[in-house]
């Protein structure tokens, strides 16, 4: 079972649309209503409340304003669909059982400005701890008034707060770090990518040596009339078949050794 976060970004509000129907006709054939559970971290425990029930075939959008009565301002709202309500308080992340894999059961994760919106079809599963991140992101856009952000999205089973450091380099000059930022677990951490001296021909490489996450890249015009949102691939996606996870390990080892060592 996956979670569906309500995102947040500068100049945008998050909106997440849940769907109580599977993405295919063969993996999960149950046609049942499901509870919409809202989960968040507060006082170092997972808190949950049931927002309602979604009939089979139904879809429902939730904005930050729909959950603000429950979730503290600095906590990440996590929506999910489950057969029953979750415990009100829990030491570890509550998990249900339903789901699909071809593809994963997804929601629409949107960022909405007053003039436009952008979205991706996504889900969020807890990452192993400590975990790590290596990604190459050719997403920055340039022009008058254009802003670029990385939204570092993390979820772990434990509600204990921890932080880590995301480092950004130019992959052609791996010895010189361009930026360093603190990120939090169980949160969406916003990193401004502008002002680091990265230009249109630079390929930024981003690492985090002890925390995994989904790196989302948002570009927006200052007035919010144009938005672009996409995530990068994990390194394992550069290969197919064979021992692809060994390929990812190899790439991480090579680049973690190379970056910052000049």
């Amino acid at each position, binding site marked *: 079972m996956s979670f569906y976060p309500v995102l947040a970004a500068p100049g945008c509000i998050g909106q997440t*649309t849940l*769907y109580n*129907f599977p*993405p*295919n006709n*063969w*993996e999960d054939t149950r046609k049942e209503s499901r509870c919409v559970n809202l989960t968040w971290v507060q006082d170092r425990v997972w808190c949950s409340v049931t927002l309602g029930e979604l009939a089979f*075939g*139904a*879809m429902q959008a939730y904005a930050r304003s729909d959950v603000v009565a429950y979730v503290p301002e600095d906590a990440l709202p996590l929506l999910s669909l489950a057969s029953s309500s979750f415990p009100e308080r829990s030491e570890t992340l509550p998990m249900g059982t339903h789901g699909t894999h*071809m*593809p994963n*059961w*997804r*929601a*629409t994760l949107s960022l909405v400005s007053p*003039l*436009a*919106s*952008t*979205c*991706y*079809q996504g889900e969020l599963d807890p990452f192993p701890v400590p975990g790590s991140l290596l990604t190459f992101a*050719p*997403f920055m*856009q340039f*022009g008058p*008034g*254009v802003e670029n952000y990385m939204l570092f999205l993390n979820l772990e089973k434990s509600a204990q707060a921890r932080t880590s450091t995301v480092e950004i380099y*130019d*992959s*052609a*000059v791996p010895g010189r770090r361009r930026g360093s930022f603190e990120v939090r677990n169980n949160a969406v951490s916003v990193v401004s990518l502008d002002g680091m001296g990265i230009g*249109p*021909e630079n*390929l930024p490489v981003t690492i985090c040596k002890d925390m995994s996450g989904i790196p989302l890249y948002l*570009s*927006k*015009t200052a007035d919010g*009339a*144009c*938005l*672009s*949102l*996409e*995530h*990068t*691939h994990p*390194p394992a*996606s*550069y*290969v*197919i*078949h*064979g*021992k692809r996870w060994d*390929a990812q390990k*190899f*790439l991480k080892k*090579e680049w973690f050794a190379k970056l910052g060592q000049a």
Partner: protein
Amino acid sequence: MKRHIERLRRATWTYKQPLTRVPAIAGAPVSDLFVWRNSEEWETFFELTDLPALFAGPDSAGRNVAIVFFDAAGYSFSEKTVEITPGRRNTLALSAIIGNVHGAAGTFSVFHTHTPQSLRALGSHLAERGYVSYRYRGAPLRAYVHGNLDAIARLPDQSLQLLGGQSFRLREYHLQHSLDMQCCYELGIVNPTSKKQRIVCRTLSANGNTLGSHVLDLAPCGSHLFKVAPKRVQQRIVMRSRLIMARPLVFRVQNQTMDVFHG
């Protein structure tokens, strides 16, 4: 017993029906079939990076990629070789390369000409699933979307092998997205199999009733954009075919703005 029956049921959907088949030759490079669009309103860009150099280091002087372009019928009409520089980002403007005589949309694939030994030793194939961006009506920003389908391999004799598996039974792909009445949608679908595929795109109402449907026969390597203009709230899309995953690329246009994402 119940568990055994469920395993048998699932086997009818999974046995010898891979999403992506293994290329015929070890080390052959693999690519997505990325959708290109080219018209007065649409421009297409591709973020070219030196993937082999990420694994093998910068000692890859003189290496390049081959970009093969297909029209909507799946016919390969052009190939372009582009030199790549390790550690550099190269945003390729594809519209100028494609020209204006091959239709308004089609697909392209990007094959790296070198597979690092470190990957060959793992029995893996280098896969280009990179990032495409689209500009709509000259907007100041492009909208990005990543590749997600390991669709086609290029063999050493330069021939192409489509890698998409085919289902024994008809499958439905239920797009988990609520169509907005204020928007117009175009749903891009490609055929990564070596056989012609019939695809039925149905629009459903909130209560599951069929509001409309389009039937399409898609040649191998072919592509199509289904146009949908929702007339009611909370409409959704179902794709029915023998493709293992008929996941569409969704273009959403609202007034002068555009968004693109994988379904």
